[in-house]
C-alpha cells in the first residue's frame, strides 16, 4: 500500500495540501437542544448537542465564578469498520473528554455564566481519522448555535508527516501509519488552544507540519463561518417576512 505516490497523490487521490470534503450544518436538532451541529470531515461524522447554560443538577457543578462545561463523548460501537464495544471509562476517552472540556473552558466566555452548567453531548457516528479535530469543530458550531458567547471560533485540523512531506487532514489509513498532529486554532490567529501529537516526528520538521495545519484550520474556520452566516440569513429572512 502506497500512502503517497511519487507523483504526489495520496491514497484517496488528494494532493498534500488538500483537505477532505467538509460538510457542516448547525441547528440540526432545534426541538431537543439549545444548540446543535453535525459535521462530516471526510468519512468522520460527528453529531453535537448542547444543553444550557442551565441550572446544574448537582451542587458541586455550580461554580460561583464561571460556567462549568461538561462534555460527554460517546463513540458509537459501529463507528469503525470492525464493530467494537467501547466503554466510556476507557483511558483514551477520558483523556479526549478532559482535553475538550479544558480547551473550551478558555475559549468560551465562561465568566458570563456563573453558577450554570453547559452540557455538551458528542456522538461519533463514524470515524476515519481526525476524530478529535471533528469533535472540536462540532463543539464550536453547536456552542455558537446555542448562543453561548465565545471569543472566536476554535477550528481544528490534523496534519502528518510522510517521509519529508507534510500531509494535511489525515484519513484513517494515513493516521494509522504516520504520526499525526492535531491542533485547534483560535479564529484567524496563529494561537493554538489545542495541541496533541502522539507519535514521533523530527523536531526540525515541526515547523512545516504546523504551518500547513494552521492554514488548514483557517480554511475550516471559513467553511464553518459561511455555514453560520447561511443559517443566520435564513433566520433573519424569516424574521423580516
Amino acid at each position: 500500500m502506497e500512502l503517497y505516490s511519487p507523483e504526489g497523490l495520496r491514497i484517496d487521490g488528494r494532493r498534500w495540501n488538500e483537505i477532505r470534503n467538509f460538510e457542516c450544518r448547525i441547528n440540526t436538532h432545534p426541538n431537543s437542544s439549545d444548540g446543535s451541529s453535525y459535521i462530516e470531515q471526510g468519512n468522520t461524522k460527528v453529531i453535537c448537542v448542547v444543553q444550557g447554560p442551565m441550572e446544574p443538577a448537582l451542587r458541586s457543578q455550580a461554580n460561583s465564578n464561571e460556567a462549568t462545561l461538561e462534555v460527554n463523548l460517546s463513540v458509537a460501537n459501529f463507528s469503525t469498520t470492525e464493530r467494537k464495544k467501547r466503554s466510556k471509562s476507557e483511558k483514551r476517552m477520558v483523556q479526549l473528554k478532559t482535553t475538550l472540556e479544558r480547551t473550551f473552558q478558555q475559549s468560551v466566555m465562561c465568566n458570563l455564566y456563573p453558577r450554570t452548567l453547559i452540557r455538551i453531548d458528542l456522538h461519533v457516528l463514524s470515524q476515519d481519522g481526525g476524530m478529535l479535530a471533528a469533535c472540536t469543530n462540532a463543539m464550536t458550531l453547536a456552542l455558537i448555535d446555542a448562543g453561548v458567547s465565545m471569543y472566536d471560533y476554535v477550528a481544528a485540523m490534523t496534519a502528518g508527516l510522510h517521509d519529508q512531506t507534510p500531509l494535511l487532514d489525515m484519513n484513517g489509513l494515513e493516521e494509522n501509519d504516520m504520526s499525526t498532529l492535531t491542533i485547534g486554532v483560535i479564529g484567524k490567529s496563529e494561537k493554538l488552544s489545542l495541541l496533541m501529537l502522539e507519535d514521533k516526528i523530527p523536531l526540525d520538521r515541526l515547523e512545516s507540519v504546523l504551518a500547513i495545519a494552521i492554514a488548514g484550520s483557517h480554511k475550516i474556520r471559513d467553511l464553518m463561518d459561511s455555514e453560520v452566516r447561511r443559517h443566520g440569513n435564513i433566520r433573519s429572512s424569516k424574521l423580516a417576512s
Partner: protein
Amino acid sequence: MILSPAERSYLYDSLAQSPPIRPDSRSDHQFRPLEAKTAFLPGSNGSARIRLMDGSECIISVKAKVVLASQESSLIECDIDIAGFRDDSNFVSNLKFYLTNLLLHNFPVRYLKLTSRYAFKLFLDCIVVSHSSYPLSLISLTSYLALKTTRLPLLVSDVNDEEIAEQPTFSDDWDNAKYIDDYLKEGETFEPPIFITLGVIGPNLIIDPSTEEEQVLENGLIISFYNNNVITPISNINLATNSNNSNFKGLNRTLITKGIALGNKYCPAIISALNTLIEQDDEEGTIF
C-alpha cells in the same frame, strides 16, 4: 417532568373522557408524527434514524459479522446507548433486555445461516440522542427500519462445507448484496417484530403517550406485534420516569384484551406506514 396539581387534574380529566381528548389533539390510536431516514451509514449493513416532532431521536446501525455458528449462543446482539444515562443503569438495561428478548424469539434466524458451519451474526447498536417519553417504541420502530434495509453480501462459495474446511467468500459487488426479504419464499414478507406503548387511563387506552400524558397515566402497557398478530411479551410498566405520578395503580384485566384488540387493529397500519417510508426514502447520503 413535574406537573402542578392543577395541570395534572386537567390532563387526567380530559384523557379520561370518552373519547379521550389528548393535549396535542391526536385521537386515541394516533402516533406522533415522525420523520425517518434509512441507509445513511455507508460503513454499516443497515441503518436508520427516526426523529419525532418533540425532538426525540434514535439512530440504529446493523452490522453483520461472519461467525462460526457453533460458538455463538445467539445470532443477534443488541446494545443501547442513551445520552445522559449510564450504560449499567436499570433504565438502559431494561430497554436492552426488552429489545434483545423480542428479536431473539421473533426473528427468522434461519436466513442468517450461511453454510453448515458459518452464519451471519447481527449487531444492533442503538444511540438515543435525546428522548422525552419512554423510548421503547421509538427504538423498536427504528430497529424495524434498520433491519428491513439491512443488506447482506452475496455468498459465492459453496454452501456445503461439511467436509472441506473453508472460509465463506462473498461477492465483491455491493449491488449483488441481498435484503433479508430476498431470501424469503414467494408470498412471505420479512417484517421484524415491533413494540408499541399504550397508556391506560380510566377506561381508555391511548397509543404512544407523550411525556405530558405519561405523567397522569394509571398504567402503561407494552405490546409486541409480529407477523400480523399481537404476540407475547405483553407487559405493564410505569412509563414515566422522574415524576410525581400518584395515579399509578393496578391494571383491569379487560383492558389487556382491549389492548390486544387495539394492537391487532392498528399495528398493520403502522407497519405499512413504515414500509412506505422506506420506499419513499431518497438515496441522498447525509442525514441532515
